[in-house]
């Protein structure tokens, strides 16, 4: 079932997802806060506006699929699933613990609602394209969504997947690009430029729509454009801020991965809870 949250509700949900990201990484002792915080609005729009899924029946075969190709943003994924009701929010506090279902990177065998295990960059988008092609080949109507990191598209496999999705005209596939321009070692543009982005995807037969990745209304509109586009997969090219919502993490490459200490946790919570 699809939820049709209003713009205000989506904004609030994105903020709740951020709170849960910080909470779980703080409790987990490690994780990837920067790239998780940068996709909070995308996750809110997907699970509370666009995707036809059933949290009571996670394996419903006609559901829309989501593949987090940038698997290290798992805390954002888990937070969205918990918000949607796939599992209790208390579980978020067990992130990365030895007996937890919440692995450092998404594990479809452990977490209700995770459609594909990811973590090794570049692989998720191939699986997402495979799911979309399966829907086409079997006449199923479900749609497939994926989120790619901007550093991730340095992986050659991404371009094999992008080429094939264009070739197979997978208009039921929509990929978001989380373009915060930071990767572990520095700026994406400085370490290994992935630009120009639009021209690359268009050359491979994709429809490209730009959006502010933190503006839920623009994201909703972008998904509508993706659905309206026939014969081509769509890239929603999202300009984002790594660490968005927590002042001391914003645009800081050092917050790609790491632990959140008690003091940092208090500051972040104050900012997010207002």
């Amino acid at each position, binding site marked *: 079932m699809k939820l049709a949250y209003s713009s205000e509700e989506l904004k609030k949900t994105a903020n709740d997802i951020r709170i849960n990201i910080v909470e779980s990484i703080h409790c987990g002792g490690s994780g990837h806060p920067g790239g998780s915080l940068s996709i909070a609005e995308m996750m809110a729009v997907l699970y509370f506006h666009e995707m036809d899924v059933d949290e009571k029946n996670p394996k419903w*075969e006609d559901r829309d*699929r989501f*593949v987090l190709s940038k698997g290290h943003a798992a805390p954002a994924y888990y937070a969205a699933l918990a918000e949607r009701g796939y599992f209790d929010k208390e579980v978020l506090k067990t992130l990365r613990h030895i007996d937890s279902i919440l692995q450092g990177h998404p*594990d*479809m*065998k452990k977490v209700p609602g995770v*459609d*594909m*295990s*990811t*973590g*090794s960059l*570049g*692989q*998720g*988008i*191939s*699986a*997402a*394209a*495979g*799911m*979309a*092609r*399966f*829907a086409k*080949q079997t006449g199923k109507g479900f749609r497939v969504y994926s989120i790619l990191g901007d550093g991730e598209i340095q992986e*050659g*496999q991404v371009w*094999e*997947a992008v*080429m*094939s999705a264009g*070739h197979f005209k997978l208009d039921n596939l929509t990929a978001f690009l989380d373009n915060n321009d930071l990767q572990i070692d520095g700026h994406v543009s400085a370490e290994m430029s992935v630009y120009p982005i639009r021209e690359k995807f268009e050359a491979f037969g994709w429809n490209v729509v730009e959006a502010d990745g933190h503006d839920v209304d623009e994201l909703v509109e972008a998904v509508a454009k993706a659905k309206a586009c026939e014969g081509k997969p769509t890239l929603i090219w999202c300009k984002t801020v790594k660490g968005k919502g927590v002042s001391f993490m914003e645009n800081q490459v050092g917050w790609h991965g790491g632990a959140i200490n008690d003091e940092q946790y208090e500051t972040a919570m104050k900012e997010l809870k207002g």
Partner: protein
Amino acid sequence: MNSTREAYGQALAELGEKYPIYVFDADLSKATQTVHFAKKFPERFTNMGIAESNMIGYAAGYAACGATVFASTFAEFAAGRAYDQIRNSVAYPHLNVKIAATHGGVLIGADGGSHQCVEDLALMRAIPGMVVLCPADTEETRRCVEAAILYDGPVYLRFGRMGTPEIYENGKTCTFEIGKGTVVEDGTDVTLIAVGDMVSRAATAAKKLKEEGISAAVIDMASVKPIDEALVVEYAKKTGCIVTAEDHNIMGGLGGAVSEVLAKHQPVPQEMVGLQDQFGRSGTPADLAEYYGLTAEKIVEAAKKCMQRK
């Protein structure tokens, strides 16, 4: 003589009628023989182009939606090039993807070392939960393909390029199942355990040994993983020494798998016929067999040496 890759193509086309399987290939469908399935079931076949990593990812995506999928290319480009995709997108989530790789080993012939995968069994065997199969002839290949379809999880199947004698004919029954070896010849002095093209060579070696008064058992261990531990132990006890024979590096493949069982349960002398930590090279399959010692004569030599070590 049929090759196991041809047997694979025939089995897929036949079993495609019985099971709703999907097949992927990476621009090698004539070589891997998936072309027969492609012609018969075009709606369930996809050519992914020369992009093996992406092919494995697509197969995983299909399997995550509930499909049973075969993905085929040469062993080097499956187990080698797409190793991480097989590990992380297929085996880690235990999906129903069957990696059916042809052209394993050096006996494929003239293409040379770049194309002769001598480490695929080792690579695939080391992945947790992966089933690894390497059949010896047409009948066994068919059984392996069907067993892979019925098994819930990832399977690696290795096929050869060249025609190979039929093992299971003239009253010899193939009893293959996952986790079970087949006793092709019984014997009491030495046991020859082989896979793929080397099973017929082991059978020939057993005949030659018999002429010299040596009774050699021959076991076809198509189920490289899980290996038939009980059968290995039984024959280690019965014959007191074991020779393994494979068209693969002696490290980590069949030889390694058997030695793991022996070390743990029944230490007896073992000799390993196979690639002695070498890459392949160009040449005819016959010349390559001589060059690398993948012959019945070498197995006979190894058997005698092994018996002396008892």
